[in-house]
């Protein structure tokens, strides 16, 4: 049984307008996403900004109330679980945020920040917690003396280590990593990526790894899902996806990666235009619509549920992009 199963998840936000701030439209940030994640597995999630990656992550940790669909964690449906029922579940599902400067309370010491999860879950005595904080700091490569310092006293990479320590404090099973290295310097990124890999091996963690750096995602993931305008358009094992992309959007994304090798300069098939707004998205295949593909109209009447084209390789079966 997989650890996490997401089925046809939808997260819509009302767009309010007019004098009475009535809901005039809905922003379909996540619009029918299905996937599953096994224990110890990493699923990478890529796409341009505004495609719904972060919203999907937040919906899974239930920082949002999904509009429709279901999220099952270890067989238990948590889609609409109340705060009370969620609290024990939260031990197992944690999140690491993009900007550690904004996700750590500046007025709390590192000790306060790392003790908080234990206090919320009512675990351990004061003495035990002190020991656990020291263990956590050691695990993420920070000195024990860091406990009494404040977040601003650390560099970006060190702060992200604190964010990671907080996420692993309760020995979770799943961590949603939302752009965990995007805000870090290049020379520090690989340290943090190594730490995440190491923790995954030691603790058997599953990651939902959200990032826009396609090379980073490839390195971290077992499987990768490509999102476009609230939907997954392709999902495949990492190596397979990068070697044999099927959907036109995946191809365009891969083509745009700047490769750090001047001998591999290429003429690219450049994507024109910007990501369309998820408010009133076009019917059918949204990417075919952006490309003004002649066969786009056919996709409007079709069932665009992902189809398996080779073992483990799923793609949206629209005539315009595949």
């Amino acid at each position, binding site marked *: 049984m997989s650890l996490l199963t997401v089925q046809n998840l939808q997260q819509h936000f009302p767009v309010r307008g007019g004098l009475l701030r009535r809901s005039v439209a809905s922003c379909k940030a996540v619009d029918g996403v299905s996937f599953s994640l096994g224990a110890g597995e990493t699923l990478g999630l890529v796409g*341009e900004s505004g495609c719904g990656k972060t919203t999907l992550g937040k919906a899974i940790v239930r920082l949002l109330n999904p509009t429709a669909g279901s999220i099952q964690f270890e067989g238990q449906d948590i889609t609409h679980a109340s705060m009370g029922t969620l609290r024990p579940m939260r031990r197992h599902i944690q999140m690491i945020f993009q900007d550690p400067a904004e996700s750590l309370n500046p007025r709390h010491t590192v000790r306060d920040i790392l003790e908080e999860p234990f206090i919320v879950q009512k675990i351990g005595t004061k003495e035990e917690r002190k020991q656990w904080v020291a263990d956590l700091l050691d695990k993420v490569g920070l000195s024990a003396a860091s406990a009494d310092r404040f977040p601003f006293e650390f560099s970006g990479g060190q702060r992200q280590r604190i964010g990671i320590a907080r996420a692993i404090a309760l020995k979770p099973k799943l961590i949603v990593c939302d752009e965990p290295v995007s805000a870090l310097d290049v*020379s520090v990124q690989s340290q943090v990526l190594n730490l995440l890999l*190491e923790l995954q091996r030691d603790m058997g963690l599953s990651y939902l790894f959200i990032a826009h750096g396609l090379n*980073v995602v490839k390195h971290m993931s077992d499987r990768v899902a490509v999102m476009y305008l609230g939907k997954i358009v392709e999902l495949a094992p990492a190596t397979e996806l990068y070697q044999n992309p099927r959907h036109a959007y995946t191809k365009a994304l891969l083509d745009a990666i700047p490769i750090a090798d001047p001998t591999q300069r290429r003429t690219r098939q450049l994507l024109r235009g*910007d990501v369309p707004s998820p408010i009133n998205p076009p019917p059918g295949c949204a990417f075919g619509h952006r490309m003004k593909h002649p066969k786009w109209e056919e996709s409007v009447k079709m069932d665009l549920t992902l189809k398996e084209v080779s073992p483990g390789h799923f793609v949206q079966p629209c005539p315009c992009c595949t």
Partner: protein
Amino acid sequence: MSSTTPILEVRDLVTAFDTDAGRMTAVDGIRFDVPRGKTFGIVGESGCGKSVTAFSITRLLPQPHGQILGGSIHFEGRDLASLPIKEMQQVRGRDVSMIFQEPMTALNPVQTVGRQLAEAILLHTQCSLAEVQARSIDMMKKVRIPAPEQRLNEYPHQLSGGMRQRVMIAMALINKPKLLIADEPTTALDVTVQAQILELIADLQKEMGMSVILITHDLGVIAQVCDEVAVMYAGRIVERAEAHELFAKPRHAYTQGLLESIPRLDSTPKTKLKAIQGNVPGIADFKPGCRFAGRSGREHSTAHLNTRPPFVEISTNHWVENCPICVA
């Protein structure tokens, strides 16, 4: 001026900021040439001084705290470092232009795109409003903004990130500068839009024959578009060479570490990456000697920590800050 002389020659540039904690030297004696018609990349991490270098060249350092303390910036026979402010204002925006990282903060939110473009034109040339309009539309077309006539009357917030960056490029290029300085022009953008913008800059460069300084932290971007590259670390250039040479034969331990630490598309997933240990030093911790010593994992003697390594040409047009420990 012959086509072989560099368009810009920076020599021993020192730029410092006066702060409450004393004088902080952000750029500490750097030298480089920007070849005519080529793209020169400056790559480095946050706080290494790459943006301060750009602001020194355009003399846009925050006043009165930021100042150029030494060195020269020779551009077409003039030293920009010591040019009186009035003359500098004529150079800036006409001969040397700059585009910034975040177009939303660099554009004026309460003025239409058309008005901002007009300002850039009218500062340097006297022409009729009809002419201004025609030139603006022409430039908007060049940066591939659809429906330019309509866009001129819109405000920056009505445009997407990619479109805003195009407007910035249009503003920077409207007076056909000889040198364009692009400071992280694509960092705030998605990879797909980044590819569009980089291609646009390259096309316009070819068409207008200008030289470009491209500042970025992304070695991938450098590899894709630059002819020559300078690698900056802690206020200094540690290595400088042609792009092919630098990526094929990096000599300084920092450059090597940086290149090895990026996850590559052909690497085996979920394997340990090579990493540079430690953190990027803050400006207050800059040492007089080799500044990469603490992170290099190699033993440095007191002499190496206290005396600045010389910047030498170790092979043709390949320069390196020659710390005997970091350049083995």
